């Protein structure tokens, strides 16, 4: 196997690490910091990476670890996780009617962007670990085994966490159908 370079890591995995960081922290500015710190740690550890697992799995595990260390060392960050959540909900309420591109677009585009907003808001209401598990499952196609490795929890916990997260999302999205648009 050819050696990975820092360029390879950034080119191939930046979006994935950033998306996971966004799910863990809940806001773009903390996600930027977490991504940068995690990627720099990975680049430092790179000579020791032997390819025992997919590079993305290894990177995501470092990201989760970095996030745990950060929240442990800075308890005040608990607040920063709560604030953007409210902001996101407020913002969505205010922006909803005009959120669509002012240019006359097809009906489906409007519906699509509404649905995206609903999904994002429903996701924001979940605990960070549940959001991370969903992200890894739905958008990274990771197996339960890999998710367990990344989050450092038993496979059974991954299973019940995903089930719980999806049930809550169902309910949140159902509320939208009932009261929304």
């Amino acid at each position, binding site marked *: 196997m050819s050696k990975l370079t*820092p360029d390879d890591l*950034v080119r191939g995995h930046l979006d994935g690490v*950033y998306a996971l960081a966004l799910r863990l922290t809940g806001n773009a500015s903390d996600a930027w910091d977490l991504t940068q710190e995690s*990627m720099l740690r990975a680049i430092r550890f790179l000579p020791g990476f032997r390819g025992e697992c997919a590079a993305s799995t290894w990177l995501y595990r470092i990201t989760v670890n970095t996030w745990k260390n950060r929240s442990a060392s800075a308890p005040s960050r608990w607040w920063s996780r709560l604030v953007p959540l409210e902001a996101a909900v407020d913002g969505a309420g205010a922006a909803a009617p005009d959120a669509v591109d002012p240019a006359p677009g097809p009906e489906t585009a409007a519906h699509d962007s509404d649905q995206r907003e609903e999904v994002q808001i429903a996701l924001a209401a979940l605990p960070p670990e549940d959001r991370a598990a969903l992200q890894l499952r*739905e958008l990274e196609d990771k197996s339960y085994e890999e998710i367990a490795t990344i989050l450092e929890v038993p496979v059974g916990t991954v299973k019940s966490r995903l089930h719980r997260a*999806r049930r809550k999302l169902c309910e949140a*999205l159902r509320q939208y159908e009932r009261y929304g648009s």
Partner: protein
Amino acid sequence: MNAMDHDRLKENLSAFVDGELSADERRELKAHVAGCPGCARELQELQGVSSAVRAHGEEHAPAALGASILREAGRERGSADRYRASLVRAAAVLAAAAVLLVFLGNRFKPKLVDLVGGFVSGWSPATAAVGATKAP
């Protein structure tokens, strides 16, 4: 089927969607869902939520973030190299000092022998002073 068995099957619906059940569990759940409208509906909802997240949950990193990481990694790499270079310099200085000590030691050994000889043949303050200042 008792309520506990039913709960266990219901808990498996998500893993069913993810293709994470064993062949036996799969078969058992399929058979149950075929005859249980509640689980059939829940399965449909879970699949709907799964595809909604897949369709609308993707995120892209800000364009400047990758460049910022590589720049910082380059800086770290540079300072690690400088640190290594300064260690090599310090080691070279120490090695030179050691060589000098050995050299001086060899050079002044005869004097030490003389000094000891001086003790044997008769001590004088002058030879003692010379030995003391020149011995390493």
